[in-house]
């Protein structure tokens, strides 16, 4: 078991390398340097620009710059932002909680809605419920998240004035405290969480349904029924436990999707998370921040997969005892 986890961790190294090299390479494929942006040109004299290029080694070939970046990374130094000279790690650390809060809430929502939905539609295959959930699933796969976000903003934010449409807290947050502040953030969370969960929910409930359909055809379920167990016990104790196993892995695999989706709707909802930071960094050619965001995003993905693997191994004795 420990050897298995060890092998998994070793596999992460080439992946992180690959992702950072690709990001670095693409950034340097483009003609022009970050110092060529009009914003930079208009505010800074050519002397300072030369100094800036020298400090960051922007005149060297990309692989030299990459090796330098790696050297700094080995000291956990992600460099400083071109834009405001703040340490990249600090910038990301400032944005990470908002992204984690959003993603954990939506993972939780996906889980508590998708599992019962999938199980019920498998048990009552071809019923009205199954059909309706099928429609929801297809809608979830097909809807553009940014459009869903816009529509919900129009309906709940502008027409009904029920929910705030941007940011993580109200401007007047300093005047309120304790429970009121938590409630305020919760209100801001509703729309972004719903939008980000909707797509994942579709995939997950379909997956649960598929698994459940396979499991209830197994011999041990027939045995459980033949023993005269209550249907509830057969479903929950015998079928569900086996059907849910692969879900752990799927949850882990859904993390890049959640983070990737964040780049759009964090921008729409003005959510102060990593996705928006990444988007802003790309738009202003802030190399160190882009590298930081992609490295951390890849790391989060791998960590998610790793946790999923451990959980899977823990839950499935066939793997645990190998």
């Amino acid at each position, binding site marked *: 078991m420990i050897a298995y986890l060890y092998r998994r961790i070793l596999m992460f190294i080439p992946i992180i390398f690959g992702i950072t090299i690709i990001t670095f390479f693409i950034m340097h494929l483009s003609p022009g340097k970050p110092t060529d942006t009009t914003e930079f040109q208009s505010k800074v004299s050519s002397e300072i620009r030369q100094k800036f290029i020298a400090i960051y080694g922007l005149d060297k070939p990309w692989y030299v710059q990459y090796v330098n970046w790696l050297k700094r990374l080995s000291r956990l130094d992600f460099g400083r932002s071109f834009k405001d000279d703040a340490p990249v790690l600090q910038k990301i650390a400032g944005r990470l909680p908002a992204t984690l809060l959003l993603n954990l809430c939506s993972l939780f929502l996906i889980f508590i809605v998708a599992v019962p939905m999938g199980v019920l539609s498998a048990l009552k295959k071809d019923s009205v419920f199954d059909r309706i959930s099928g429609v929801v699933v297809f809608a979830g796969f*097909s809807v*553009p998240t*940014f*459009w*869903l976000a*816009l*529509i919900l903003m129009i309906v709940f934010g502008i027409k009904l004035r029920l929910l705030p449409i941007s940011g993580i807290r109200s401007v007047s947050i300093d005047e309120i405290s304790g429970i009121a502040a938590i409630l305020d953030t919760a209100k801001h969370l509703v729309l972004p969480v719903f939008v980000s969960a909707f797509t994942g929910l579709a995939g997950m409930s379909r997956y649960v349904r598929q698994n459940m359909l396979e499991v209830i055809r197994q011999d041990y379920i027939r045995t459980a029924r033949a023993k005269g167990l209550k249907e509830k016990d057969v479903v929950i104790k015998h079928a569900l436990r086996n059907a849910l196993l692969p879900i752990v892995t799927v949850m882990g695999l859904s993390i890049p999707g959640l983070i990737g989706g964040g780049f759009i709707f964090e921008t729409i909802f003005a959510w102060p998370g990593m996705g928006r930071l990444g988007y802003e960094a*790309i738009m202003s050619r802030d190399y160190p921040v882009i590298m930081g965001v992609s490295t951390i995003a890849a790391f989060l*993905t791998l960590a998610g997969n790793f946790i999923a693997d451990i959980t899977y191994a823990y839950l499935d004795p066939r793997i645990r005892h190998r």
Partner: protein
Amino acid sequence: MLRIYFGRFRKNKNAIFGLSIVLLLLMAAALSPLLSPANPSEQNLTERINGPSIRHPLGTDDLGRDLLSRTIYGARISMSVGFIAVFLMVTIGTTLGLISGYSGKTVDTIIMRLVDIVLCFPTFFLVLIVIAFLEPNIHNVMVVIGITSWPGLCRLVRAEVLSVKERTYIQAAKVSGLPTARILFVHILPNVIAPILVSATLGVGNAILVESGLSFLGLGVQPPTPSWGNILTSGKDYIHVAWWLSVFPGLAIFITVLAFNLLGEGLRDVLDPRM
């Protein structure tokens, strides 16, 4: 065999529905100049931001352009991006999948690690970086979506190849000294056509979603060329006064992607009744 598939396909209501919409959209894309009531880029400043009416069934935008015509022309963009991106995805994914599954050993390991890398990337971030650092235009969008979406298909093809290559007729082809390329494309490929067809169909929907997302962020198709994504962006600024600018283009994306998903899932049911 084909007749059996065709019979099953005809009974699948979802697939037929999806196919009809896809055909309608292709027609709209091909015949946009004939179908649209007005010139999509003709500005009419006296009719700015008018709601839906008989003259302008979907209303007009901030420059007084007819939204219905712009939406019809938008189908051209979405369809061409969808199909060309998927063509690239299928070419790369299938070739690498065939090679990976057939050759095994080191080549297989390298290709599978590459798949892991691309899968661990939040794809949209990669696409954003490429587009922002190259030039945001429709050609780059097609290419980038194509080269970031192949890993899933590659894995699928590889898995199929692994099971096919042990069969006796492949062994026979090998022993008789056929060149590897011929074995791969003539003898193995036909066995994996079904999953490729399904993922290609679903892939078109996905490519259209990504393109509209990019255009929405201002990194895809550039105005004044109408794309559903960039119509939505300009609509966003008028969200308080002009709901139609946000609702209709999004609805167009939604219905299109839905149609491709229904068709794709329908094809899966038809081609692979085990699921």
